[in-house]
């Protein structure tokens, strides 16, 4: 009897869910993680994303006159939970924001069947840039391969790379391994020695073995592809082992203010590539204060709001918001479908002028997407830790498109073949 009763409840709950979740507005769920070992780096991003949508709802009444129902589904960075969230939300959602390379990879093949766009700004699977193959996936404005390329270009500006040794300290996880194919290709071409050093999920906070290896191998540079607790662990170890900080660089997810504040002055010179930057004087920050902070709708605080990650959260929601706006204009109705949103995300043109209208000048480089280019390849800045905060150390650096494009096309083709039958977007003539 218990079995029956339990199953009965379960089925009843399901029925309840199917009818109960219909809220007003456009449902844009975020597969957030405010728990677990990656929460530290996740929370400011999630706060930024949420606050931006709160701002649109409070100030403009949503987008195009329709409220955005921005909801979080907690994953704890666990792929399993993420997929559960995806299944739970996909019925009503116009977009899925998977927030982890692992979840992205898992959800990616399903989106073709479910016809729902994946928005993975600055993460996910680099070949997603090929919009003809990955019709429903977007990693605007930069892919990991772009990021690796920008870092290498910056290092080349400091001196010829041939004969140099670059240690690639990465999380042993799909996210950390993403840039490896590109780095290997470049190592061969540019003649530097690539030394991949994986950090297991269990060792994120105790990287003494990795840093002993770095001390033994004496690399010229360390490029870090870290996330969550790994970054703080690596930066403190680097300081401890007296690795010259100016020769250590990280991906944009390894440029979190709080991680560097742990070491403060000792971290001076550490660099991170970024496609977003906080601008405390931007009009949007003032608007946020009036419409979101003062009414007490934020979970953030002043210190966090001045950081790189919070402002990146704002940019990510801006990308979604602009996608919705463009889609609404194209569809001629505010009540857009996931397919409309896909069109919107494929036809983004974020210019300096548009950024000024949004009140976000200097917070993200301009970029433009198309049906063939789902990334936009905006380019990025190198940020440098000055002992108290991140500052822009360079002008915008563009990724080496010539080196990336063939690799992207090949990887996309391989993916489609491995997942045959895989529908390609042949209508796209670009």
């Amino acid at each position, binding site marked *: 009897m218990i079995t029956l009763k339990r199953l009965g409840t*379960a089925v009843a*709950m399901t029925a309840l869910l199917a009818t*109960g979740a219909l809220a007003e507005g456009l449902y844009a769920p975020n597969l957030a993680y405010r728990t677990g070992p990656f929460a530290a780096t996740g929370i400011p991003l999630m706060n930024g994303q949420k606050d931006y949508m709160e701002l649109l709802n409070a100030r403009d009444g949503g987008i195009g006159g329709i409220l955005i129902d921005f909801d979080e589904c907690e994953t704890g960075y666990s792929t399993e939970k993420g997929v559960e969230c995806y299944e739970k939300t996909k019925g009503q959602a116009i977009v899925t924001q998977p927030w982890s390379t692992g979840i992205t*990879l898992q959800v990616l093949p399903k989106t073709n069947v479910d016809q729902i766009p994946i928005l993975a700004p600055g993460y996910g699977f680099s070949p997603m840039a090929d919009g003809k193959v990955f019709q429903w996936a977007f990693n605007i404005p930069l892919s990991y391969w772009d990021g690796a390329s920008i870092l290498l270009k910056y290092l080349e500006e400091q001196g010829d790379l041939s004969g140099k040794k670059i240690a690639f300290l990465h999380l042993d996880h799909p996210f950390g391994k993403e840039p490896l194919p590109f780095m290997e290709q470049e190592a061969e071409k540019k003649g530097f020695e690539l030394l991949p050093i994986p950090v297991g999920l269990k060792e994120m906070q105790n990287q003494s073995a990795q840093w002993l290896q770095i001390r033994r191998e004496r690399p010229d540079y360390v490029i870090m592809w870290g996330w969550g607790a790994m970054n703080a662990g690596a930066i403190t170890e680097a300081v401890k082992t007296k690795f010259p900080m100016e020769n250590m660089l990280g991906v944009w997810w390894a440029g979190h203010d709080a991680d560097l504040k742990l070491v403060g002055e000792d971290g001076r010179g550490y660099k991170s590539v970024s496609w977003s930057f906080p601008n405390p004087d931007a009009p949007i920050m003032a608007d946020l204060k009036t419409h979101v902070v003062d009414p007490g709708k934020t979970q953030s605080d002043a210190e966090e709001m001045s950081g790189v990650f919070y402002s990146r959260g704002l940019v990510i929601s801006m990308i979604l918001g602009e996608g919705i706006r463009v889609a609404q204009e194209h569809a001629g109705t505010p009540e857009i479908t996931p397919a409309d949103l896909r069109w919107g995300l494929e036809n983004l043109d974020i210019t300096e002028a548009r950024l000024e209208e949004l009140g976000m000048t200097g917070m993200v480089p301009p970029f433009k997407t198309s049906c063939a280019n789902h990334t936009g390849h905006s380019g990025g800045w190198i940020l440098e830790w000055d002992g108290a905060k991140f500052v822009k150390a360079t002008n915008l650096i563009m990724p080496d498109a010539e080196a990336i494009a063939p690799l992207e096309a090949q990887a996309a083709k391989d993916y489609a073949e491995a997942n045959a039958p895989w529908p390609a977007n042949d209508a796209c003539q670009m």
Partner: protein
Amino acid sequence: MLYRTAGQFKTSYKADMALFPVRQDAVLLAVILALVWGVFPLLASEFAFQTLLIPILIYALAALGLNILTGYAGQLSLGTGAFMGVGAYACYKMVTLFPWMNPVVAILLSGLFSAGVGVMFGIPSLRIKGFYLAIATLAAQFFLVWLFEKWGWLYNDNASGAIQVPNLDMFGIYVAGPQASSLVQYYVVLAVVTLMTLLCINLTRGNLGRTWKATRDMDIAAELIGINLLRSKLMAFAVSSYVVGVAGALFVFMWRGAAEPNLFDIPLSFRVLFIAIIGGLGSILGNYLGAILIVGLPVVLNTLPQALGLPISSATVEHLNVMIVGALIVFFLIIEPHGLARLWALIREKLIIWPFPH
């Protein structure tokens, strides 16, 4: 009343030892089978398939495998997740190396690989006992997950290090991969799970099962009455790992669609262990009850605040979830250490003699 046994006479030993000595059990089972084979698939939504029906069946199967080892043969194992991984990776290699292979056959064969690995890590059980053995199985857990990460051949050297289930079809219908429908996957899982359950029920009731129980209750005594401990323990590891491996292959191929190595890490092992223990060690039914509770509870908890309109953030819900699962484990252990299966057995006893309790 429903369960009154009056009028059911057993006239032979065979009748007394039959699978269903009480006729109502058979009826109840028939009703449940009709529900899971006929009614649920018609009613269930995509969400119900993906978050309840399929995972409950797969987790129950994994717990069943663990239960054979821990509940029947008395060897505590904390490495279930890794053995599920062996099944999943073996299945992945088979379907990518031999694309013509029938996916269900591949799933059933993949269990053999995990059985082999299981026996290898089972050898120390001949000398190591109790908690020492439990920690020893953690060696399998950590070593295998490390191997899944480092051995590129296992995941065909793809860049992300994750395995992705290709589209696989059987008689023209997709059964695995993104193109497969949940309904088809549900039936495949259900068929495999039903088959495995039947197999396990018969194994545990037969000669081998009695050998295991003797080993569990006191292995030295068992040895003295002529049981070959080597054979008994290693068979338990082999059968258990086989079932767990099949569950692992189903887990990835019929449900998740892709997997990265740390999916098979220790939280998965613990999850399966919770199911086996809360359901009841040494019971087959318990695995299903435990899986329904452990898989179903978080889903229900997640939807509750939304349904009631409580303004709790999803992060807090998740934390509460973890807390409640923890508290429930303690609670169940205190009220019924032998698990839900024993609870059901008690209720059934009461029902049989109701309304005359004396």
